[in-house]
């Protein structure tokens, strides 16, 4: 039985099309990624990672996926896309969580302007061609508020996070400023930023979400910083110095908090799906190890102490997968479960993302325990997953995430 069938999930909710896309991603993974991924960490010139991303984003077409058809996209921009995305990202994550994470940011960044029912016609008209009429890779980079700030800059706050950027009214334009902002992903490789700003002199006097093309004047992207994992994702701090963008790039028709929750709900779903793919790959590897390694004269998996650890690994995957697919379904049916930006849906998606990403770190850590040095060596193909999912996990924001959960379930007002 295929690993993807071994692990339970509500398969009634998956369509055949989802499986077709997943298959082509599986093929891409086997050909373009898996043979090379042990070298990704030293692929300083993007010679291995770059072409792989291009194949996925351009040739298979993921970067067009969520743009409306009339702007040249694949038109998968209704919430129903959620299960498609999960199944696709399982496959991408299985091969390389870093590439999955790039797509997670790119996809969720666009939800506030391109997802039904809130399609921002102006913004789509302007920005869709960047992603749809090109043979080049296009990447989005969400810049979210942070939990605390080293510089003491605090232009506002939202859901217990600090807003560091500002958006000032400037007639037909909006001027964005912000020092040393750390995006969720792709800060060093982005074509388009989605930035949450404190609004100054705009219709909304709280928080506004603005899309900012990376080639706008006044943007400085630092060198990508070195990090634990997700090497494919070149993240870097970004500085905005009086960056002017057309007014229509600001999601002024919607509240900043609404956009914030929508982006995070979708990003939570994507991050969870990537981690499931990663865990499933490790499951296959450790399963093979359990079959072939001999301990006390029998296969490792037949030693009950090791079987118990193997069971823990599998159980993390099973539980995480059920949870993630349920979030996908809930997002797909806003009439039944609430909109992506409702407090309830936001809380559920955050809670599941916290659960799944930390489960992934545990599960892969457990697999490493069993594989000992082979788990720790790059050639074992496990340690990269471990570093990758940890890097995803830290991005979910544990303490503010717990506060989000408390806020909803206990109606807390001051957290």
């Amino acid at each position, binding site marked *: 039985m295929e690993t993807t069938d071994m692990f339970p999930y509500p398969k009634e909710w998956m369509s055949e099309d989802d499986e077709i896309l997943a298959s082509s991603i599986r093929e891409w993974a086997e050909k373009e990624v898996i043979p090379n991924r*042990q070298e990704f960490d030293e692929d300083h010139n993007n010679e291995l990672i770059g072409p792989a991303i291009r194949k996925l984003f351009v040739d298979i077409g993921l970067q067009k996926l969520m743009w409306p058809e009339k702007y040249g996209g694949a038109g998968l921009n209704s919430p129903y896309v959620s299960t498609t995305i999960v199944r696709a990202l399982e496959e991408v994550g299985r091969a390389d969580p870093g590439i999955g994470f790039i797509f997670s940011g790119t996809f969720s960044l666009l939800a506030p302007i391109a997802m039904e029912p809130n399609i921002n016609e102006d913004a789509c008209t302007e920005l869709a061609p960047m992603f749809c009429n090109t043979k080049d890779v296009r990447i989005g980079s969400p810049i979210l508020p*942070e*939990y*605390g*700030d*080293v510089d*003491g800059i*605090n232009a506002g*706050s939202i859901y217990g996070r*600090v807003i560091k950027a500002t958006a000032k009214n400037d007639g037909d334009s909006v001027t964005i400023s912000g020092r040393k902002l*750390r995006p*969720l992903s792709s800060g060093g490789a982005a074509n388009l930023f989605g930035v949450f700003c404190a609004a100054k002199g705009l219709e909304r006097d709280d928080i506004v979400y603005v899309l900012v093309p990376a080639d706008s004047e006044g943007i400085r992207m630092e060198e990508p*910083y*070195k*990090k*634990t*994992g997700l090497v494919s994702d070149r*993240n870097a701090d970004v500085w905005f110095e009086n960056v002017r963008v057309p007014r229509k790039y600001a999601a002024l028709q919607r509240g900043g908090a609404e956009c914030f929750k929508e982006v995070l709900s979708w990003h939570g779903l994507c991050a969870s799906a990537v981690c499931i793919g990663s865990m499933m790959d490790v499951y296959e590897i450790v399963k093979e190890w359990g079959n072939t*390694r*001999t*301990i*006390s004269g029998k296969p490792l998996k037949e030693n009950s*102490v*090791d079987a118990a*650890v193997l069971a823990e690994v599998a159980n993390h995957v099973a539980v995480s997968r059920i949870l993630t697919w349920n979030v996908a379904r809930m997002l797909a049916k806003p009439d039944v479960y609430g909109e992506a930006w409702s407090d309830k849906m936001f809380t559920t998606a955050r809670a599941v993302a916290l659960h799944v990403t*930390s489960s992934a*770190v545990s599960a892969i*850590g457990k697999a*490493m*325990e*069993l594989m*000992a*040095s082979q*788990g*720790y*060596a*790059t*050639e074992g193909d496990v*340690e990269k997953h*471990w*570093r990758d999912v*940890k*890097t995803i*996990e*830290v*991005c979910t*924001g*544990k*303490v503010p995430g*717990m*506060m989000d959960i408390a806020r909803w379930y206990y109606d807390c007002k001051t957290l």
Partner: protein
Amino acid sequence: MTTIDDFTRPKEFLSPLEKYIGGMIREWAENDVIPYRRKFNEDWKDHNWVEPAMKKLYVDIGLQKAVWPKEVGGWGLGQSDHVGTLMARVFEEVGRADTGIAVASAVTFWPLIMIALKPHINEELCAEFAPMFCDADEPRFAANAMTEPQGGSDIENMGNMGGKTITTTAELDGDEWVINGHKLWPTNTGGVADLFGVICTTKQGSSDEDDFAFIFVPADTEGVTQGEPYKKAGMAADKNSDIWFENVRVPKKYRAWGAGDDAKYFREVINWGSMSSAAFCVGAMMNTYEILKEYCSNKIFRGKPLKENTAVAAVLSDIAKDIEICRIATYQSARTLDRPELYWDKWSHEGVAKSRAVKMHVADKCIEVTNNAASLMGTYGCDRDWDVEKHWRDVKMIQLWMGGKQLCQMETARWFYGCETL
């Protein structure tokens, strides 16, 4: 202000020397390692950044002479009855800077336990090998060659397997041992070590402790081949690779003690290995504490340092609490090595089981502490600039080695519950 030195240790147990030696290593860490350690990750193969730090520690400070008897040019710590807690402090300080260097140092010391620690000092072998370390201007490394391609933790699982699965063989041919076999993953391999302690059997398939042999093999002996270092998740300052022994001949006297005693003192080696592993982890955790304290003091949330947020303080608290407990347990474990007459023989099954228990606890907590610290720091937690993620990557290996957690569990259960077949 509270510092890492405020974590509790049983002060009654400390060596008179430990302030002095600990201080020197602290200074070395601050000047020679911490400013450069972010470069170690890319330096895993060449060790351009690692080697100068090693040289300072081994040669200038002189750590490579530490356990050798004074008579052969060493510091004579092998004869001290404070060597346990002193080494705990040394490894803690080195581990705080870099657990990779800590393991390289401890593993150099490791085979020497067989011959240079009282009450079992093998004067002949000390005289033979001490000059390699004590009369040298260059750092010298040693290593135990234990793990094999199959069998893995079965090799270390002496209590149950009694060496039955060891496939590296030693045959006596006249006055020489002839060694054949293939070892994986010893620390300080990949061309680093000068001297190996090879775990082998004089009778393949036997689980009689008499057939277990511990034989010293200088790395330049004919027939010894080392592979390329492995690339791995962390621990860049420590190289690991394969070693092949092909008809390697060494003098008969290079076997540490002979039938029975090799196996016996090898249990002491395991005991020391566990205590040292715990000490590395305590060091890494203390450094994590320092970094996190700085981060949460400087990062501002709602006009107050992050550490004043009670939910954050709870995470910080759990980390301090774990370090406090782990440090106490580690020094207690080290103390038992110094006072066998009060506790138990260093080579007893009790000693092995209990030090395994401490190592298991401390290593698990160290992973938890570094993991939670990184999570608390959000995207900065995985940013190499903050060094927390480095500790997280590095210390995972400590949990995995020497048979990993499952073997620790079996050893502990065997002794505390009288299990007979684990």
